[in-house]
């Protein structure tokens, strides 16, 4: 399912490139990118509920750059503690916070400071006080063991250089019986060596 990291891939360069691209998505979501962004894309391509998106602050939906839709996988129960890995500007995070309700909690993790700040501002604008955003990395989540009822992630774990470490972190932070609502890209055909080493393609 996931692509193994080639031994000689420059993972530091990969992380820097990811930070740079998503900082640009945060500051200029209408700019030139090789992936779609925004609420119209989310509704048309990924079957998000357009009415639910319209209730969110525009700054959270404009920078949305997910690749699938974790909210269609299973319902998030009221009172749940939900973690969103790579929350970006917060669109999925705010939807999760609304599902979890005032008795629940939604914690977003993002490694890009400008995205994390956008998500915090969006939560304030939406009047959601059950949202917390932490700066952190999917390979080393700033969360306690067995603390989450639900983990969601959308288009982020494919960017990590070692999927088994990232999935292991999701497993670690979930409570026994906890659910992983995982949205990402999948590559069905075998990739050439040169493609696997191309940082530009990893960041797409």
């Amino acid at each position, binding site marked *: 399912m996931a692509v193994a990291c080639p031994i000689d891939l420059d993972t530091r360069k990969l992380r820097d490139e990811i930070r740079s691209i998503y900082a640009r998505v945060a500051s200029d979501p209408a700019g030139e990118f090789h992936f*779609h962004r925004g609420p119209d894309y989310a509704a048309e391509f990924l*079957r998000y509920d357009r009415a639910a998106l319209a209730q969110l602050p525009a700054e959270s939906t404009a920078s949305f750059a997910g690749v699938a839709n974790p909210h269609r996988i299973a319902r998030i129960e009221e009172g749940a503690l939900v973690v969103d890995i790579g929350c970006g500007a917060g669109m999925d995070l705010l939807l999760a916070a609304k599902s979890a309700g005032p008795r629940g909690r939604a914690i977003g993790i993002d490694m890009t400071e400008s995205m994390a700040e956008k998500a915090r501002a969006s939560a304030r604008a939406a009047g959601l006080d059950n949202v917390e955003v932490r700066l952190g990395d999917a390979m080393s989540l700033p969360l306690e063991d067995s603390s989450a009822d639900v983990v969601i992630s959308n288009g982020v774990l494919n960017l990590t250089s070692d999927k088994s470490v990232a999935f292991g972190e999701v497993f670690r932070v979930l409570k026994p019986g906890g659910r992983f609502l995982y949205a990402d890209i999948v590559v069905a055909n075998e990739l050439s060596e040169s493609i696997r080493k191309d940082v530009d393609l990893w960041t797409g």
Partner: protein
Amino acid sequence: MLAQVGFRDVEVREKFDTFRGTSKERIARKYAVTGINIFARKS
């Protein structure tokens, strides 16, 4: 890979034509890259 980590009930629920209309559409089609929804549960 999810099952190897210890997840159970791993199931693909839905696929999406995520890269349609982007500059990466051609390479996405060549390598059959799609968006995907997956369910998994911690045992």
